[in-house]
């Protein structure tokens, strides 16, 4: 099915580091015929999903396929530690209010826990680098 193939191509481009891959690598990895992949890519280029640029790879002509609109990733790692993320009082919390970030006990616990986690991670890093140094000697 061409739609399935297009979806696989999009997923592969989405997961690639720079959002681009070579066409000659694409059909090998997807385990599809080069002709099917080439046809799908032409269609996708017409729909402005991807861009194809002619390049030389190992003396042979191929295309670099670049995803034009990379879907943004949902990442909560930077706020998941903080109690504010799931706090129902967030909209009525503020300085000078009965609920305030100044003395919020839930936020204080989050900060404390994050500091302990951070200290632990730093300690592990320090021990690991000390071990590497010792091994090198």
């Amino acid at each position, binding site marked *: 099915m061409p739609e399935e193939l297009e979806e696989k191509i999009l997923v592969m481009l989405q997961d690639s580091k720079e959002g681009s891959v070579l066409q000659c690598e694409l059909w090998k990895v997807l385990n599809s015929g080069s002709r099917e992949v080439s046809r799908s890519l032409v269609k996708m280029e017409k729909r402005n999903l991807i861009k194809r640029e002619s390049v030389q790879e190992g003396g042979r002509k191929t295309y670099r396929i670049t995803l034009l609109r990379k879907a943004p990733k*949902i990442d*909560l790692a930077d*706020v998941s530690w903080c109690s504010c993320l799931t706090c129902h009082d967030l909209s009525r919390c503020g300085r000078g209010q009965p609920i305030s970030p100044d003395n*919020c006990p839930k936020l204080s616990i989050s900060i404390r826990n994050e*500091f302990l986690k951070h200290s632990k991670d730093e300690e592990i890093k320090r021990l690991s680098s000390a071990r590497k140094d010792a091994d090198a000697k």
Partner: protein
Amino acid sequence: MPNDGLVLVARELIGEEVVQLIQILSEQDETTDDELIAKTGLKLNNLRKLLYQLFEQSLVSYRRVRDKDAGWFKYYWRINKTGLIILLNAKKKKILFKLKERLSYETENQFFSCASCGTRFTFEDAIETNFHCPTCAGRLDGMNNQDTVYILRLKIEELEKNLAD
């Protein structure tokens, strides 16, 4: 799970009952009402209620197609990633503001804590009670809040960088 963020937000905004629905919707590109009923065991009216709640929060979107034979509309539901990202970024900005407020409070004040119960007081509050805890009468000692300041600065920096990207 690929949609941890979505599950977390949906659970907080609507409730535990939407978690299963989100998980099923995440597995496929598009899902019909009938498939969702078969997989969740929910009644059609309850399912629609949850889906509309998710739609109101911009967490799902749908397209509808008229069934030529029956004349009814058939709904195809999908996760609305763009809506979720907008929602999460707004929430992250709010959290960033709260963290900055807390950082100001931590850097603008000098703190004391009760040697017995551990309650924290600002210098102004401590001087009012003559450096004794109003709850347990324990002695108030100077407190170092550098750990808190350090972690707040680190997290604010990280959040600002991610929001700018």
